[in-house]
């Protein structure tokens, strides 16, 4: 680092911008990270409310509360809000908060672009959610936007497409920023194999984002021109093919699955060693396994389309490729287990949620392997079995990882310890209710209940009622999280710098809360001070 010290006139180090401008014009990774997290939480509740409309409607057969079109809008927009509004922003928020601190940098590499990545989100979701008030209603053809169904949408179609473009711009800028930050802003001695695993998973996620989001932009652009400019990409009458959309969409869509999950894997790779008071087992194999998962994710997309009518070679290729992802994923699962083996374990809330990820993500992983088998998938396709599968992966897999990260770093962010009793209550109510909510869906799916239909045969009533009870219990449990966070921000037992007895890494060398500009002089990193 040269001393390119410039204009160092009057700043004392913790000089903060004040007022609303601090947030609107921010160039601070922590403030932007906080905005991301708050935004994600709000969207989590909006998306959750939509899920509860679905569960209320499905409490009994027949049509009760909403008409089928609105029901379809609920399933569609619930997915879009949760994926693009809750999980991804929460992941980016954690990256913003933690990556500069973990690698010993003062901020992200491009702080202004960072702010734009965030401020796009509220506007993009205004665009998307405004469609509820339009002629023809909100998007209702499923979040995957398959043509020709999606083309039947009314005025909402261009708003949906532009919202997707807009979110893509945000994601790509965010990903570029993370890559530039990690590759260029690491403190002296912070070599790649000393990076905390959360940072590793995020670099790989960022590469996935840059490679896949533009492909989604291309796919929805073709939808737009098919709808308004006379092209025939997805119209067989003009020589195109509706299945082409599915190929392009899932070329984005499958890496997207790993974009969602890898940051959570990174978080629990930080937490499990801390509360096992042992270094992470197999650090290098974790890095390589993550990279392998990401690489393979580009060659498995058509397992989402086994029933669409593909040549046999295609079905076989995508089946074997899909199966092969279980190998690096298994490496990770066993590494986490081996990390806990004979550790001095304690079970604070972050650890509970991490163990929750380990168990329940694996359930989702196993059902994933089941559906990766082509002939078996013919049976499960578009049933509640797949709904159970991806919700196990997404909720107690990915969202639990985010919860774990929030509890783990909340004392660092606020300087106060959160209420451990309430945290544990949040974990146990969530864990019981999430299983009551999603486990019965396996039975419903195997029995043949199709997804995305507001009505069902009476034989499915019992398990649907159980699932709905679980759904409302899970929704209510999340209010505990809000309570814990507010309580922690307002005060509480002061946190030490290290916060957790077994915590290692640069973030624990800073004060709690950290100074406004994290590291103003680069720390020297050695093996002893690197990751746990």
């Amino acid at each position, binding site marked *: 680092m040269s001393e390119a010290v410039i204009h160092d006139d009057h700043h004392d180090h913790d000089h903060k911008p004040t007022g609303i401008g601090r947030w609107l014009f921010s160039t601070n990774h922590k403030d932007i990270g906080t905005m991301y997290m708050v935004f994600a939480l709000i969207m989590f509740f909006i998306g959750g409310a939509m899920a509860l409309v679905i569960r209320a409607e499905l409490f009994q057969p027949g049509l009760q509360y909403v008409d089928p079109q609105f029901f379809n809008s609920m399933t569609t927009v619930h997915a879009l809000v949760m994926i693009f509004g809750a999980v991804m922003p929460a992941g980016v928020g954690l990256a913003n908060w933690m990556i500069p601190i973990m690698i010993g940098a003062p901020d992200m590499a491009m702080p*202004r672009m960072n702010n734009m990545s965030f401020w796009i989100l509220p506007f993009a979701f205004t*665009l998307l959610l405004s469609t509820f008030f339009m002629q023809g209603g909100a998007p209702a053809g499923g979040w995957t936007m398959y043509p020709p169904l999606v083309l039947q949408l009314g005025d909402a179609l261009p*708003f949906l497409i532009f919202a997707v473009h807009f979110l893509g711009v945000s994601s790509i800028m965010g990903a570029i920023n993370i890559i530039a930050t990690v590759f260029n802003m690491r403190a002296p001695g912070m070599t790649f194999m000393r990076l905390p695993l959360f940072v590793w998973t995020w670099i790989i996620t960022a590469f996935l984002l840059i490679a896949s989001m*533009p492909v989604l932009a291309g796919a929805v652009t073709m939808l737009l021109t098919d709808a308004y*400019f006379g092209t025939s990409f997805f119209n067989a*009458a*003009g020589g195109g093919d509706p299945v*082409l959309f599915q190929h392009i969409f899932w070329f984005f869509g499958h890496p997207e699955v790993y974009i969602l999950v890898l940051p959570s894997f990174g978080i629990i790779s930080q937490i499990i060693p801390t509360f096992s008071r042992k270094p992470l087992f197999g650090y290098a194999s974790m890095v390589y396994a993550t990279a392998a998962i990401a690489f393979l994710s580009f060659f498995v997309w058509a397992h989402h389309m086994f029933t669409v009518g593909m*040549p046999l070679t295609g079905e076989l290729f995508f089946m074997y490729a899909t199966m092969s992802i279980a190998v690096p994923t298994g490496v990770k699962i066993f590494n986490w287990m081996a990390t806990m083996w004979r550790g001095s374990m304690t079970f604070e809330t972050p650890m509970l949620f991490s163990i929750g990820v380990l168990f329940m993500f694996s359930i989702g992983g196993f059902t994933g392997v089941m559906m990766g088998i082509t002939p078996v998938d013919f049976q499960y396709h578009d049933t509640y079995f797949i709904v159970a599968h991806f919700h196990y992966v997404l909720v107690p897999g990915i969202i639990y990882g985010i919860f774990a990260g929030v509890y783990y770093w909340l004392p660092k962010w606020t300087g106060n310890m959160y209420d451990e009793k309430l945290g544990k209550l949040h974990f146990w109510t969530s864990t019981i209710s999430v299983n009551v909510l999603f486990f019965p869906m396996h039975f419903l799916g195997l029995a043949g209940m199709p997804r995305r239909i507001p009505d069902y045969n009476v034989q499915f009533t019992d398990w649907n009622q159980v699932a709905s009870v679980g759904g409302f219990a899970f929704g209510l449990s999340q209010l505990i999280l809000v309570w814990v966070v507010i309580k922690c921000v307002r005060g509480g037992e002061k946190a030490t710098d290290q916060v957790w007895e077994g915590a290692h890494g640069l973030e624990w060398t800073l004060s709690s809360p950290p100074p406004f500009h994290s590291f103003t002089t680069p720390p020297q990193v050695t093996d002893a001070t690197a990751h746990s």
Partner: protein
Amino acid sequence: MSDAHGAYFIPEPSRWPLVGSISLFITFIGGALLLNQSDAGTLVLSIGLLSLAYMFFGWFSDVIKESMAGSYNKQVDISFRWGMSWFIFSEVMFFAAFFGALYYARVLSVPWLGGEGSGLATNQFLWPEFQAVWPLITTPDMTAEGIFTQFTAFKETIPAWGIPAVNTAILLTSGATITFAHWALKKEQRTALCIWLAATVILGAVFVYLQAEEYIHAYNDLSLTLNSGIYGSTFFMLTGFHGFHVTMGAIMILVILLRSMKGHFSAKDHFAFEGVAWYWHFVDVVWLGLFIFVYWI
């Protein structure tokens, strides 16, 4: 403007990111209204595009001022390099989606519609008269008698060795001229720098002009339009997005030219120039892909 923290550069709070988000928001609303045939569409879209231009102008002015004031160190320079490279990679992936659509249609879906492989039943039941050929002049729906056809036939395709070959030569030449400009800049030969940059801009403009001529010819004389089925769709979307990128690239080089004329950049320090040059080469490479796969074979 800038704020230094030890060895690091961190910009002060800035309003441009928010202005940018709002401008894009207005632009998208305008575009969507226009597509929904609302009267307000044009106005809203224009406001959005103007504010977007204002954002670019303001944001880049800040960056240029900081750069000229010497606020940027080596580390900032490297961050910009990482940023620009991966931005270009994201653009590559955007084009990949459209190239993928072209290959999929040519290699898989059109032959299937013609009855090849597992497409026999499709062909027999839907359009038994349909023949799979590329370029696809007669779309499946045109072969069904007495049915309203959604797509329009065209006479012939644009031959590769006419305007497209000339345009290939132009873009390749422009790739050379921008490199000459770079060499001139490295030797601090300002006049040569400006002349070569101007030459590059002119070549870019000529390319876009010829491309526009080609489009007019396709629409008026050949009836080849966006509505000509999958051939017209892939042809115009691929060449159209490429043409748009050439236009953007030419505007970027024009800005670099104007800055060079004002005396910006030094032999050692000129990342803006390099970033734009990288972009120009990217546009060039995409064109080669287009020339080979869209026009030639």
